[in-house]
């Protein structure tokens, strides 16, 4: 109980810090705190594998990526150069809309019962973390992932591959010339052919 509320306070605080910081480096650090707290939160929900994944993928991979990009784009700490603010008054409507949505959701959540665990299903408790073959254990998760949900798993692999290709294309140095219409002069393609031939 206490653990939950402690984690919740950390989560909310770090989230707010993330979005209000001027400098992205501070944001990243704050986000790191947030992610770790969230991983702990997963453990309280018996989702041990997800918790581990959270740490490995988010903090280990994604955040590192952010840090790299920040390092790449700016020489160091401090705000990025920015142009004129074209939507100076967006904060008010954004807050209103967001709060409205939040209010509606909260209203709905308070009015609708969330439901309870079906009688015939037994689930593990916090104390079960680390045990094999109970709800949320790695074995339980793995069995489901590689049997029932094999196809989505493989599709995910495919999506990742597409993303990799996309990043490679985007990250390559070749500037993509702006093209207007589909017309490509023949000469160019011939030149290309000759280049290809020469390369052979």
């Amino acid at each position, binding site marked *: *109980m206490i653990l*939950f509320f402690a984690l*919740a306070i950390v*989560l*909310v605080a770090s*989230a707010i810090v*993330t*979005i209000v910081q001027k400098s992205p480096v501070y944001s*990243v650090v704050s*986000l790191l705190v947030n992610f770790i707290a*969230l991983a702990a*939160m*997963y453990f*309280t*929900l018996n*989702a041990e594998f*997800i918790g581990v*994944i*959270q740490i490995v*993928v*988010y903090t280990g991979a*994604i955040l590192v*990526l*952010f840090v790299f*990009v*920040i390092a790449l*784009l700016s020489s160091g700490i401090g705000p*990025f*150069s*920015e*142009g004129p*603010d*074209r*939507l100076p008054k*967006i904060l008010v409507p*954004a807050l209103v809309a*967001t709060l409205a949505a*939040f209010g509606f*959701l909260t209203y709905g*959540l308070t009015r609708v019962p*969330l*439901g*309870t*665990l079906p009688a015939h299903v*037994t*689930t593990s408790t916090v104390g079960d973390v680390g045990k094999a073959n109970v*709800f949320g254990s790695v074995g339980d*998760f793995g069995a*489901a*992932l590689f049997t*029932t949900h094999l196809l989505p*798993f493989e599709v*995910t692999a495919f*999506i990742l591959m*597409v*993303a*990799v290709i996309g*990043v490679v294309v*985007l*990250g390559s140095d070749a500037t993509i010339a702006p093209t207007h219409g589909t017309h490509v002069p023949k000469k160019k393609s011939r030149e290309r052919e000759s280049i290809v031939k020469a390369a052979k």
Partner: protein
Amino acid sequence: MPVDIANYISLSTVIFFIGVIGVVTRRNPLIVLMSIELMFNAANLAIVAFSKLWGNNAGHIFVFLVVTVAAAEAAIGLAIVVQVFRRAKHVDLDEVAGLRG
């Protein structure tokens, strides 16, 4: 002592809307991307909480998939940011207005 699932859901909601505000108000694309990650995480938390509530581990699978997609999204998003920076020498979403009709 088990915590009521409703608390988890409320927490998830709060974090989600914090992310929303970040997306809408910030002009720095990196922070926008981070806000999006926040929203992903909030959603994941809700899913895991419901998974626990119903005793159904399909939610875990779903979160796993979301994490992968989020990773892909972050990678591509950051690549785009890098490209944009190369061209515009600014990191400002308001400068990337090519969609203007």
